[in-house]
């Protein structure tokens, strides 16, 4: 990396992180508060959960992995980390990439940014790195609030499992950011970038869910990012899946930067 490239990359990173300085509050606080609430109410409903889950339909229990809600980790996983946290974080990644590239393009900011000596590839790499770092900050806020709630009510959540659960969301977010970058590399406007990427992620979620419920659909889970996301809170982190999703996301972002270099910037 040349001196000017590394300087430009640092500038994009610094600007992006400044733009995202409020995300631990705007995204981390609501998600963290919801997780904290789940952990906080667990001691009071712990005894009735067995009876409650016994009455759930079998398919529902299989789909959401709630066979046994016999721990605060399993309860938090079923309520927050199987759907709400990963999908919200995926949407955060889409929105962040879209804002840095597509919104900047359609509002004409790129005409100012890209007439500085900054390559499009550096702009894309910087935006991708900003999204990865900002999502880590949001996840850190979720972790801190959940842990604080556990201490406050004596829910006795396992620190290691909570770390695994929160950390396992990060590669999913990175992969989604890579996918959004790829689409932004092709398209000029933020609305289709957001719609296509979000639609793909939701589609993958539905495939994963259907695959858990029906054996015929099960092989399709291979194409779903959620199969590799797994359940960090109850099963720990799968290193291969963690690395695979992260590297996959980076590869998609790189492909997006190549596409972005080869097309016109919207007037």
């Amino acid at each position, binding site marked *: 990396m040349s001196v000017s490239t590394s300087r430009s990359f640092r500038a994009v990173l610094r600007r992006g992180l400044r733009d995202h300085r409020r995300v631990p509050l705007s995204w981390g606080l609501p998600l963290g508060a919801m997780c904290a609430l789940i952990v906080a109410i667990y001691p009071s409903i712990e005894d009735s959960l067995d009876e409650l889950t016994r009455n759930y339909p079998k398919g529902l229990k299989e789909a959401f992995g709630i066979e046994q809600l016999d721990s605060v980790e399993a309860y938090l996983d079923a309520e927050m980390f199987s759907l709400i946290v990963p999908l919200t974080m995926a949407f955060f990644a889409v929105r962040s990439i879209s804002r840095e590239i597509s919104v900047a393009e359609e509002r*004409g*900011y790129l*005409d100012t940014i*890209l007439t500085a*000596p900054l390559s499009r590839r550096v702009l894309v790499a910087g935006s991708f790195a900003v999204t990865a770092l900002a999502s880590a900050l949001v996840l850190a806020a979720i972790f801190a609030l959940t842990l604080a709630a556990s201490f406050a009510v004596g829910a006795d959540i396992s620190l290691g499992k909570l770390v695994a659960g929160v950390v396992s969301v990060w590669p999913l977010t990175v992969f989604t950011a890579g996918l959004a970058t790829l689409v932004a590399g092709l398209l000029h406007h933020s609305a289709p970038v957001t719609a296509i990427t979000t639609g793909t992620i939701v589609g993958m979620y539905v495939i994963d869910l259907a695959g858990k419920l029906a054996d015929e659909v099960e092989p399709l889970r291979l194409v779903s990012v959620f199969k590799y996301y797994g359940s960090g809170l109850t099963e720990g982190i799968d290193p291969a899946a963690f690395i695979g999703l992260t590297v996959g996301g980076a590869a998609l972002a790189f492909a997006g930067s190549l596409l972005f270099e080869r097309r016109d910037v919207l007037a």
Partner: protein
Amino acid sequence: MSAVIETDDLTKRYGEARGIENVTMTVEAGEVFGFLGPNGAGKTTTIRTLLDLLHPTSGSARLFGLDSRRDSAAIRGRLGNLPGDFSYDPRLTGRELLSFVAEVRGLRDLGGAPQLAERFHADLDRPLRELSRGNRQKVGLIQAFFHEPELLILDEPTGGLDPLMQEQFLELVQEQRGRGTTVFLSSHELDEIQRVCDRVGIIREGRLVAVEKVADLTGRTYRHVSIEFGAPVDPTEFERLAGVGELVAEGSRISFKVEGDLDPVVKTAARHSVRDIEVAQPTLEEVFLTYYGANGSR
């Protein structure tokens, strides 16, 4: 002098739609080159292609002798640009924008920005969303000039500026010329181009129809004159004057077109009682139609 901008049959099409066609021109070092044309003629497309925001369909462009596509980042390190419709993240202040640009350019500080801000009465500490169009344009001008580039590419730079600030801008361009900076100034204002440019390229419907020395263009540019006298006067007094044509006399008012020196017209009018006199520049479209015909050919 060496060429700072050279284009060779530069063409950009948007599918079937016209962009620019076979634009070939050269801008020499230290020159203030006006790029004149009506809205939609292809001025912005040419500039965005030079800056590698658009990729040419065919032809090529070289800036500082470097290829506009392959060496784009190196080229952009040596120029300042004001986009035609300057905008940036409205949450940021002008100072934050300048700090970002300075960091990308490897500058330790904001260079001449404070002096430029003072000169243009620009507020660099308010978010861009709180600024009027004219005040945002001032920030845009400062970000183009503050790092003292070798080449300035300015697309409709005075849009939104009040007359005093337009005057400041034109003075600044003159100063840049004095420093040896090359300026490529796109405009649809004939007067602006006439005041500061050495040469002018005229673009129409995507084609460069002429490149002229501004002095030549000015010498041939006519004006519309309308004089209201205290009483009817003999129109032949004016018809006889050199450069006067298309004369219409209605009661005590005489209107005509005059090319070249106005002095004989003023002296002739002064022999009578004058109630009102109006002198108007032709519109750019009129200049085109007069000198370059409806199809752009002379």
